[in-house]
């Protein structure tokens, strides 16, 4: 047996010692020492789908962009239409290269027309900050606030009830992708109805020094409901079932939003933005490959980087795992456009063995939208 290599000393979130205390298994992720699991990925995954789970995602970067020129600067820096964002709303967007490929994917929060926050991927935070600073024009000030904040994610059908008990105003009033400033156990917080799991839930952006107290209280309040602390392992299986892209796996600086099936984040009519010309060209010339969801029809798990073979040429698996919800191997792959239709059969080289797979509808998992209690 070859066991995975672990435990390189890196950055730690304010919750690191609590994770240790809770018996988490710690791994390196994006330059941080993060809990990959506590009780087990399958169990944590199930907790989020059926009840609720609490994640420490403080490794995510928070960049603030302020000033009279903030809105205009973000219109140029990101492909989604920031002018359509109301105060207290956020949307999914990106930083793109001139080639129209991903520098990073991110969330843009509009606090006011001159005050925005971006939540970016951990490993990309320094790169994003430098990129935004060097590409922003006009009267704006930027600050990397990652170290000041902790980000806790509470996800699952019981997240509303759980968070309500800690928040100074009723978080159930927030619309999907809405946010508000309020107190969480007396600490000033930004609470958003967002997540990366395919479930209803909230992300609580709180001062770093209050994080442990809040995380402990969430666990206590959730104990009767079997709410679990959840690690990055479950976060990955949850996001994959919901077909949410992971930077570094499914998207990177070789992939465009058209290819990633994220065209809805690109608003070509809003005016110029970095990467627009290349995206216009690719749209006219045709998109050579597409990110699709697949399931294995042969035995085996197709993982990130495994080569794919289609009738229209080669492709590559970008994410793959055992789906805890469906108890079956699923994944995402970049395949030639001609081989990307639902139902198309292809094969994946699983460590030297050709295993068959089929393109399927995504997301793999979609929660039933109910009136929340």
């Amino acid at each position, binding site marked *: *047996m*070859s*066991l995975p290599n672990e435990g390189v000393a890196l950055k730690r979130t304010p919750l690191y010692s609590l994770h240790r205390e809770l018996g988490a298994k710690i791994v390196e992720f994006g330059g941080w020492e993060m809990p*990959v699991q506590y009780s087990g990925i*399958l*169990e944590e995954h199930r907790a989020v789908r059926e009840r609720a789970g609490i994640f420490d995602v403080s490794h995510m970067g928070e960049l603030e962009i302020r000033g009279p020129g903030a809105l205009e600067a973000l219109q140029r820096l990101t492909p989604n239409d920031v002018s359509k964002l109301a105060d207290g709303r956020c949307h999914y967007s990106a930083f793109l290269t001139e080639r129209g490929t991903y520098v990073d994917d991110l969330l843009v929060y509009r606090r006011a027309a001159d005050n925005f926050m971006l939540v970016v991927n951990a490993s990309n935070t320094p790169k994003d900050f430098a990129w935004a600073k060097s590409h922003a024009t006009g009267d704006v000030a930027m600050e990397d606030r990652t170290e000041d904040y902790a980000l806790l994610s509470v996800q699952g059908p019981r997240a509303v009830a759980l968070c309500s008990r800690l928040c100074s105003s009723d978080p159930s009033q927030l619309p999907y992708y809405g946010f508000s400033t309020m107190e969480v156990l007396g600490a000033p917080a930004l609470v958003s109805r967002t997540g990366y799991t395919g479930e209803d839930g909230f992300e609580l952006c709180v001062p770093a020094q209050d994080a442990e107290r809040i995380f402990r209280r969430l666990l206590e309040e959730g104990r009767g409901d079997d709410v679990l602390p959840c690690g990055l392992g479950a976060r990955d299986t949850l996001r994959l079932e919901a077909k949410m892209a992971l930077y570094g796996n499914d998207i990177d600086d070789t992939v465009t939003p058209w290819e990633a099936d994220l065209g809805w984040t690109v608003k070509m009519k809003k005016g110029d933005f970095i990467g627009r010309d290349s995206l216009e060209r690719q749209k006219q010339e045709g998109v050579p490959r597409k990110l699709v969801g697949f399931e294995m029809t042969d*035995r085996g798990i197709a993982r990130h980087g495994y080569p794919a073979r289609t009738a229209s040429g080669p492709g590559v698996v970008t994410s793959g795992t*055992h789906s805890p919800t469906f108890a079956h191997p699923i994944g995402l792959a970049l395949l030639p456009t001609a081989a990307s239709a639902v139902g198309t059969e292809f094969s994946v080289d699983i460590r030297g063995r050709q295993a068959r797979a089929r393109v399927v509808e995504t997301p793999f998992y979609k929660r039933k939208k109910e009136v929340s209690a």
Partner: protein
Amino acid sequence: MNPEDLRYAASHEWVRVQGETGTVGITDHAQKELGEIVYLELPEVGHVYNAQEEFGTVESVKAVSELFTPVSGEVVEINKAAVSEPGIVNDDPYGDGWLIKVKLSTDEEVSKLMTAEQYDAYVQAEEK
């Protein structure tokens, strides 16, 4: 605690010798490190392996690991129950979670493997 009637390899497999047959599995330490096992790939009966050769793979949600046989011989049986329900390997790595049975080609290899006591010490040293 690791059973005293087994012998252990540095790659975290164990072997139980009964007559000419060696039963092979992974250790409790290995299953804990891997986390929940969701997929097992085992060889066909009849395959012949040399000691330390890869005979299959075990996958948790997060990772793939190769399996190495601690002893040389021909595979005479595989644990089909574990293939269809790999969680057995987590639940009972030294019992129902065994992986393959091998007809030993020599009786000289087993004595070179670690005893339970030696393996315990080995794991403790590895964790430091």
